[in-house]
């Protein structure tokens, strides 16, 4: 109850701040929207030429994309501080969090959430979902809806874990902006397309190192049942929540451990 109150307070002040310059946030959300939309058009034109990519048609790829956008939208609500962590340390904002009598991690979640960008990514995901969800042969019964919700939550947590893990390096080196962004955005781009079209190395990385495959590919497989799933163990389709819990636990423990080495 107490925690919810704190989260609500952060959300309230955050939304107020982000949206108070109406024109500014309006333009920013459009910019983000069109950036995302342009990558969707890229996929669209590619598939006009090839028709399918590893047995996946355009609607199915759009469906995968909608999962990525939805989870990313939630991710930037909760894990924004970890994305911009070097700046938080540099500007002394992290010291403020440290000195306040609440859990540090709890204070960091939701704090500084980029509500404008979250809204744009959310809009993209809803749009992609509307375009694809009813024409890819998914029966939206209770089980599938529940599975979808769990998928979105797991996907958000997995991406959060990646950022929490990499932001912990900032306790040791004050600058490592590059690595985190590179790893995350490259993986995210790979995850736009079905895992099966990549080589063995990339596949293994996306499954076991930066587990983006469990954000959208395997969950989408459960709902779509494409033929390329035969190359992977069937239980991978149910593994996303487990991967989320495990990766987040590892990331959190590593972060907590590294905090001991932090000198303001």
């Amino acid at each position, binding site marked *: 109850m107490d925690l919810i109150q704190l989260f609500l307070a952060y959300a309230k002040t955050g939304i107020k701040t982000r949206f108070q310059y109406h024109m500014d946030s309006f333009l920013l959300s459009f910019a983000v929207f069109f950036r995302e939309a342009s990558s969707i058009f890229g996929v669209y034109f590619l598939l006009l030429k090839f028709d399918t990519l590893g047995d996946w048609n355009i609607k199915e790829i759009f469906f995968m994309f909608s999962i990525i956008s939805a989870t990313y939208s939630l991710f930037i609500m909760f894990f924004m501080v970890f994305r911009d962590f070097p700046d938080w340390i540099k500007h002394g*904002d992290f010291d403020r969090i440290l000195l306040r009598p*609440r*859990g540090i991690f709890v204070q960091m979640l939701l704090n500084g959430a980029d509500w404008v960008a979250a809204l744009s990514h959310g809009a993209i995901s809803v749009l992609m979902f509307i375009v694809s969800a009813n024409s890819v042969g998914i029966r939206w019964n209770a089980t599938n809806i529940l599975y979808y919700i769990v998928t979105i939550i797991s996907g958000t947590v997995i991406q959060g874990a990646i950022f929490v893990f990499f932001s912990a390096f900032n306790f040791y080196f004050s600058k490592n902006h590059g690595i985190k962004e590179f790893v995350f955005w490259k993986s995210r781009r790979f995850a736009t397309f079905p895992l099966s079209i990549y080589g063995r190395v990339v596949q293994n990385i996306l499954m076991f190192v930066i587990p983006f495959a469990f954000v959208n590919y395997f969950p989408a497989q459960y709902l779509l049942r494409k033929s390329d799933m035969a190359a992977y163990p069937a239980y991978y389709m149910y593994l996303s929540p487990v991967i989320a819990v495990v990766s987040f636990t590892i990331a959190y423990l590593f972060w907590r451990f590294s905090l001991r080495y932090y000198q303001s």
Partner: protein
Amino acid sequence: MIIVKNAVKIFDNEIHATDNVSFHISSCEKVGLIGVNGAGKTTLIRLICGLLRPDSGYIRVFRREPLSWDKTIGMKMGMVYGLGAILAGKGKVSFGFDALSCFAGSGNLDSELTIKNNFELIQTIYRIPQDLFWSRFDELDEALGVKEYMNYHINQLSLGQKMRAEIASVLIYEPELLILDEPFVGIDVSAKEAIRMLLKKLSMNKNTTIILATHNVEEIEKICNRVMFLDRGKMIYDGSFDKIKYLHGCMNTISVEFDEKIPDLQDLPIVKYEIENHRMKAWYNSDIVSAKEITAFIVSRYRIKDLLIHKPTIEEMIKSIYGGIST
């Protein structure tokens, strides 16, 4: 309340920022921390609040090891950083990036939010009931005048306005231990006076322990009853102002302007004297000879135009502690 024993903190560049410092501060004390820039004030404060850990030695705050994420300590402790602290301490010693850019964001207030939003967050974080919180806020507003900027963003405020908001944001949860690092830099005289009154009231009514770090001795003299001097990480003095006055306040001067030729003062037990035209300046130790004796001696023998007795100010006494000659 605070125990520091043989604390040592050495930075990468082998500067001993805190060099074997030991002291004990009990509840309700008002301690002034004096030192020139780079003397190690900010480092010592950061050790106390757990943002830094000592390389060796022992520090306890509220009978706990200060770790900045300790919620029990966080609830009872308030930190105010002033501009001086941020420019001198954070900018140079620990990082080396542009100090001013770092000032933009640091402090207790989130620079992206308005004062109002910041205070709403503080109310939730410190679990203070709404009505109590805002009645305290009105009280603080009388002294600090932050209400009129309620809907301004922190980075829209002037330095003085920002400092007042910072101080209000800490005092509002009534910490048992209040640490202020250079809080008076950039604040006008009336606001300084208001803050001083506020601090006095706080320590009287709420038994707040106050640690005030500054290089402005005057402020410390007005607020604190105990003072510590730091010099290059070492504690060179720890005690009351009275003790300083007793130890270092005895070297007084007397300036006399004569109407005639400068006389011979060899009979008087003065330390030294300087002569310039008709004016003579003499240094004497007030423990050995009183001003009364000297003036009586001069007035009874010579015709004088003017006479001035000067007792050393605290500032001058401190200079003498730091190794200068008492003048």
